[in-house]
């Protein structure tokens, strides 16, 4: 029995027409679709949405607080206290908030902001553009070429590759080196990245694999990216952070440090210990 299987494998030859009419067309079409997708993405992604001036102001105000909390030791105590007082009051009043009236409203209302909707729509559009052509090609291959053997790899492989290389074919005894049409599609999907970066340059949107990863992480990411930030809460927490910052002027013992640097004193605080 086993001898029979071997001999049939040895005797199996592929029709050159399969190579000409199935193998090459799949590859060429996948490359073309990739290029087309890249161009379409360029066409469809217009200008990134411009942030409102009040948005910028909001973000920068928060950054200022962070900076003060971080670098407080570089300015003298009176200067620090003055800034701390001002920023804390401003945060409390919501002075830098985009719309002061909505200060007490919950974050859910911020969803109504048309700009947030626009950003979400843009992401959806991009994802759809990735998924639709790939699904179509896969459907096309499965419909017309299901069960086709397209190519024989020139090197031997273990049995474990069977699932990867012969998906769609239910023959347990066939040599793993034969590649089925559906598997050829997947190999192309993941393998064409190098070709695309050659044709279109490094930053291209033709690659289909990115959409795969995007899809799998969508559940986790979508919530974070889609949800607008509640600046009022952030301001208040920044206020708390600032109010507990212990200010220590970095220049308190600068005399000693300079003496040490210029070799007038062996070690820091030596004189004070004596």
């Amino acid at each position, binding site marked *: 029995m086993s001898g029979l299987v071997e001999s049939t494998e040895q005797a199996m030859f592929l029709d050159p027409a399969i190579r000409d009419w199935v193998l090459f067309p799949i590859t060429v079409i996948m490359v073309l679709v990739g290029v087309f997708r890249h161009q379409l993405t360029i066409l469809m992604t217009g200008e990134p949405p411009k942030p409102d001036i009040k948005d910028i102001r909001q973000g920068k105000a928060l950054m200022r607080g962070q900076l003060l909390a971080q670098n407080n030791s*570089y300015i003298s105590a009176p200067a620090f206290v003055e800034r701390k007082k001002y920023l804390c009051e401003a945060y409390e009043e919501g002075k830098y908030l985009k719309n002061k009236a909505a200060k007490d409203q919950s974050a859910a209302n911020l969803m109504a902001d048309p700009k947030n909707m626009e950003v979400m729509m843009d992401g959806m559009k991009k994802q759809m553009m990735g998924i639709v052509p790939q699904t179509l090609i896969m459907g096309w291959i499965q419909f017309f070429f299901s069960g086709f053997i397209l190519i024989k790899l020139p090197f031997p492989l273990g049995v474990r590759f069977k699932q990867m290389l012969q998906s769609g074919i239910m023959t347990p005894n066939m040599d793993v080196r034969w590649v089925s049409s559906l598997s050829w599609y997947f190999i192309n999907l993941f393998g064409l990245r190098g070709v695309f970066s050659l044709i279109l340059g490094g930053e291209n949107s033709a690659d289909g694999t990115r959409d795969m990863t995007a899809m799998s992480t969508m559940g986790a990411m979508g919530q974070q990216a889609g949800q607008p930030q509640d600046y009022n809460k952030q301001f208040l927490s920044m206020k708390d952070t600032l109010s507990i910052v212990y200010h220590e002027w970095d220049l308190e013992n600068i005399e000693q440090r300079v003496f040490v640097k210029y070799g007038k004193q062996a070690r820091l605080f030596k004189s004070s210990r004596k």
Partner: protein
Amino acid sequence: MLKRSVSQAGDDAWLVYEQIILAALDEGQIDLAKSVLFILDTRFKDSQRVKRLSGLVMEALGHTDEAQTLYTEMLEKDATNVLASKRLIALLKSQGQIPLAIRELVTYLDTHGNDFEAWLELSHLYLSQHLYPQAAFCLEEVILQQPANHYFHLHYAELQYTMGNLDVALKEYLRVVELSTDNVRGFYGVKLTADRLMTESKKGKSSGNKKDQQSNRMDNVPQQATLERLSELATERLVSVYNRASDTSKKTAEKWLKE
């Protein structure tokens, strides 16, 4: 040949064009700037960046009013345009309307609070109006954002010295020489401030009333011995720096140090 290298550069050429315009305006070659601007204008219609360049050309030609209306239009279209608001402030400054420029710059900084160069510019503007405390505030903001740049510390130290806050000035001068080894301006500052603090505390001892005032105002003054050591250190470093320098500057420095 120029044409060929331009086509080779591809999209990078546009950036070079922008630089050419700026350089040409610096050199006063307005015709060159105009011709390059024309190339950019035909390629990028309605570009805010090109518009700002054409505003620059207008300013160079002396049409300040036109430039101003152009910038205001740009800002009306897009209030977040940093380049346009900066040009507007610079325009006011060049026209000598310093108070107006200060007001514009303050509104700009209210939004873009992390632009340390703008804070620096505001401090210069305040200085030109002799508003020292305000300028000091701006410099503190700059230092908060760029704490490792000794030049800003030096600036701040000199400002504090001018304002009479000798204790802060001394500390900041020391910071300068800590950050940048053998900084001559920093050591001059250390010596000046330390000497002045010593004489003032001597004066304070002679009249008790004055001493109270001093201790009220300055609580960060180091001890007398430390001041003396600082002054010595500054002298020593300055001498060694000028020993490496030319003869004339060395003599001048020695003369000053002996006084």
